[in-house]
């Protein structure tokens, strides 16, 4: 009897899962995880024998399993709620709904950082020869600034020390120190997203203020802007990995004024608009791409500011949210992303009449990035 009951219950569920998987349409992109899903690898005798082909097939099957998202949430529930883990898929589960991607600083990262330092020094030197000042800002990550929200007993490398070491080694640049002001302001306001690895607009403003101080630009007070909530349902990159059930979403807001709303022209890789914001992304999970149209190799923002100052920003994605402030004082801002470009930036600066250069990175990306070497040919 017992065996008949088991047979019925088990076979029903098993067959249902198999059939659903069979008829389930295959997608190419996972919104929930914000990444491309694997495709069937190409067959070659070599890749078959050394195991790569089958690993690829395995990944493909896992990636296209029906209701994958539900399984990811279930796995997260099992790991975090049942097993009591304080991390999942490389993301720490912090207090008050804060998530943090793990940050390590070992030999590999040190080496990377040193390489990048050399490249920046070299670049800045060449810029100096043309009387163009280079500014350098390294922004610490949430895991360091929101240190009181990380799970107990987790020790994080001291990003302040790392930033200072990097600044000390970089030559020919004007280094902008944002740590103190971020730490101070963080006591009053939330400067980082809980579910995403970026700073929010409040954090962006703090960084902008320090840039203005260093650049001797008059600082625009925050109350001269309009704070506008764009979305109350932002779940970012940390959430895509951690997959917690009942994760509190972030508020996505901007500081709007005449200048950053009335843009003359915004030239992106695949389209030209008149805004640094793109509403369409608000309908997908990747809402951060609202800023500066997501990932482009190049974004040129032409404002209505009447001066002939042109800024070149060599950056990672932290600059995107900064764009609402960086465009305030320049007639043109050129955002270049070394991950996607393949031309010489020195030539570019010359050809485009650049007057200021800014290297803008967050610590975590900076110590892992190996793309900077492409900017000098």
């Amino acid at each position, binding site marked *: 009897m*017992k*065996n*008949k009951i*088991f*047979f019925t219950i*088990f076979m029903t569920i*098993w*067959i249902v*899962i*198999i059939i659903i*998987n069979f008829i389930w349409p295959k997608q190419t992109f996972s919104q929930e995880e914000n990444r491309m899903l694997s495709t069937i690898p190409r067959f070659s005798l070599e890749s*078959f*024998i050394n*195991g790569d082909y*089958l690993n690829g*097939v*395995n990944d493909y*099957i*896992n990636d296209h*399993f029906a209701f994958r998202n539900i399984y990811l949430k279930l796995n997260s529930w*099992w790991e975090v709620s049942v*097993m009591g883990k304080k991390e999942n898929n490389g993301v720490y589960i912090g207090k008050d709904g804060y998530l943090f991607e793990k940050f390590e600083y070992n030999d590999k990262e040190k080496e990377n950082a040193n390489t990048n330092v050399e490249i920046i020094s070299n670049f800045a030197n060449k810029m100096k020869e043309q009387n163009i000042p280079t500014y350098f800002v390294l922004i610490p990550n949430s895991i360091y600034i929101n240190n009181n929200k990380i799970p107990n007993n987790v*020790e994080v490398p001291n990003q302040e020390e790392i930033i200072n070491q990097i600044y000390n080694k970089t030559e020919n640049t004007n280094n902008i120190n944002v740590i103190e002001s971020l730490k101070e302001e963080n006591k009053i306001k939330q400067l980082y997203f809980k579910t995403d690895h970026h700073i929010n607009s409040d954090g962006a403003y703090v960084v902008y203020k320090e840039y203005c101080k260093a650049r001797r630009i008059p600082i625009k007070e925050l109350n001269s802007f309009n704070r506008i909530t764009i979305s109350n349902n932002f779940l970012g990159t940390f959430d895509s990995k951690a997959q917690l059930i009942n994760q509190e979403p972030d508020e996505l807001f901007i500081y709007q004024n005449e200048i950053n709303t009335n843009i003359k022209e915004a030239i992106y890789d695949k389209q030209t608009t008149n805004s640094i914001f793109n509403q369409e992304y608000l309908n997908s999970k990747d809402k951060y791409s609202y800023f500066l149209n997501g990932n482009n190799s190049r974004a040129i923002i032409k404002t209505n500011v009447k001066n002939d100052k042109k800024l070149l920003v060599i950056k990672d994605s932290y600059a995107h949210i900064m764009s609402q402030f960086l465009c305030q004082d320049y007639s043109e801002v050129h955002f270049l992303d070394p991950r996607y470009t393949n031309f010489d930036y020195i030539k570019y600066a010359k050809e485009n009449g650049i007057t200021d250069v800014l290297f803008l990175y967050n610590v975590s990306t900076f110590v892992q990035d190996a793309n900077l070497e492409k900017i000098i040919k």
Partner: protein
Amino acid sequence: MVFSSVVFLYIFLPIMLLIYFIVPRKFKNLIMIIASFIFFAWGEIRYIPIMLLLAVMDFWCGNKINEYWKDKKKKRIYLWIDVGVNLLILFFFKYADFIISSINGVTGLNIPLLNIPLPIGVSFNTFQSLSYIIDVYRGTVVCEKSFYNYLTYTTLFPQIIAGPIVRYETVDEELVDKKISLDNFSLGMRRFIVGLGKKVLIANNVGAMWNVIETGNYSEMTVLLSWIGIISFALQIYFDFSGYSDMAIGLAKIFGMEFDENFNYPYISKSITEFWRRWHITLSSWFRDYIYIPLGGNRKGLPKQIRNILIVWALTRGMAWSIMELCIMGSIFWSNPNSRKNIYVKGIRKNAKNI
């Protein structure tokens, strides 16, 4: 392929079961063989020629021993041929590169290293081969006259990778007459699921902890962490192996075959001897029956021969294994000081059932 994967659970197994239960009885072994080859090709295709070689050698030598049953010398030759092939294979994978690099060092040549890691399942397959040929030699079992059946036995995919060592006598009848029923399906599937849970939910989990220590990504080893680490390792290795055995035993039952138990809650043991009677039972009984008891034989000269095998064996198995195996043997010896007097061929069949 591994049991704990989506491709096995939701593609390979259901399709295989469907075909298996539909085809008429005499083709079921064929389905098993085909399934085993697919299972094997999915990840360890290099091993298929070896598997086939062993199957052919065992089958041929087994039949030759049967043919020359009255001729002791010839019987022994065929025994040693098969044993030799098995040991040679083990030896080859362990030391091929060592020999090549030594040759390179001495002669200055630059022969490229083969770089072949030991294919999965080689060990268990050779254990099984050896048990078969020794059993045939001793007369414990009648040699298999059908290559079709023998091939099924030697390629049984539930256990070939890591499962319990299945002696020929355990499944000789079932190779011909499978015990398929709804009850066996349910019992087998339940057993399989228990094994799956042990492997995925427990072993993999604590294994991640041990992995941190093994890869050295921690700041300084503290007393607490060292204990958490080794306990995690102990749990991982137990739940992984016993989970795998459960899955193998469960699958066999679904197909209508009965494998021997392999783990009997070893961590409740009150002595090391008891531990070895509960841990990987098929392995320790293999040792008892095919190495230890022969050692206690009264035949002149045979103990020496066995001792020589032991040396070769130790060389083929690597340090960790050898130590473990010596421990098994030691504790068997320690618990039965009189067993050296016990004997030999007739007693074995009985002893094999009473662990």
